[in-house]
């Protein structure tokens, strides 16, 4: 009996278990962040409910680093709505303002034309494949709210890749080295 108890406590005290616990807690953090993101997607009907402004094409209303919140449950677009769209080979979503909405079907599909407030001409030059108008399938969502400069860290991480590696590496080390409150 005594010998069995000794073995169990020996296993319990092994370094291996501790390491596993650290890894699991790290996965927990990542997964819970992913869960929050995915539930936001479900609630807003939008592929990316939060975007960071990456360019100055909507100055002075939106500066680089501003965070925008979007929804997509109401697809009744009107001129003046600021929308996020992707089309063609551009993978980066673009935040611009709608200037023309012309219905193809009644209360349905429409021809949409966008323009950045700070640009001189409309976006036809940006569209791929000689597209003259966007359609509703290109639109990711409509801007609802703004929080200024909250996303400036994303801009910095994008502009300086070494900062990105340092931050991610530092976070990894912090999580793995941090004292577990249970032990």
């Amino acid at each position, binding site marked *: 009996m005594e010998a069995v108890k000794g073995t169990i406590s020996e296993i319990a005290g092994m370094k291996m278990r501790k390491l596993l616990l650290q890894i699991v807690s790290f996965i927990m953090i990542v997964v819970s962040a992913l869960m929050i993101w995915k539930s936001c997607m479900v609630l807003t009907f939008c592929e990316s409910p939060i975007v960071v402004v990456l360019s100055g094409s909507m100055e002075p*209303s939106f500066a680089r680093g501003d965070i925008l919140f979007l929804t997509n449950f109401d697809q009744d677009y009107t*001129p*003046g709505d600021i929308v996020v769209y992707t089309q063609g080979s551009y993978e980066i979503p673009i935040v611009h303002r709608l*200037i023309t909405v*012309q219905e193809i079907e*009644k209360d349905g599909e429409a021809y949409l034309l966008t323009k950045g407030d700070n640009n001189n001409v409309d976006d036809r030059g940006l569209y791929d494949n000689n597209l*003259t108008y966007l359609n509703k399938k290109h639109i990711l969502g409509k801007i609802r*709210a703004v929080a200024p400069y909250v996303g400036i860290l994303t801009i910095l991480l994008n502009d300086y890749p070494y900062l990105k590696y340092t931050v991610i590496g530092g976070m990894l080390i912090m999580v793995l080295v941090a004292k577990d409150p249970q032990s």
Partner: protein
Amino acid sequence: MHSLKNRFSAICFFTLICMACLSLFNWGTAVIQRKPIDADFSLNKMSKFGVHPYLNEDFAQFKFNLQSDLTGVFDWNTYDLFAFLTVEYESNDGRKTEVTVWDDIILRKNTKQHKIDYKNMQVEYLLSDKNKELRGKTVQVYFNVDHMPVVGFTQKQRVHVGNFTLPEEYLASYSAKRY
């Protein structure tokens, strides 16, 4: 206990909470200030009206007068105003078209801009129609203002300012020319 790291994170957290509360207050109280918008619009001259050779759609270009006083429309959560003029009409089978013909960013610090007074202003964007049904169409004109907030929700205001009818035929001087 009061290590450098603890102090730093406490300061960061407290700042964040304060900023969030102030932002919420700023956004929540701004609505009480808001005034309705009003504008005077009149069509001056139809300068071009024809078929666009590249896009193959009807297009019209015109000059207009616009007066509006936006001084009271600014509230303390307004970063700037995006004022724009839209033209709206329905096609013969009832499909809606809305086209922006002119827009302007009204800055808070530039107080001269707050009183809009444009005489004989050229449209910025063509009034174009993919259905080619613009001839003889009566269109409605709306003056819109989009509040771009410092923090919080964007909000639009719009007011009907008039209507005009496009000519029955394309303007002869322009219809045959290349764009």
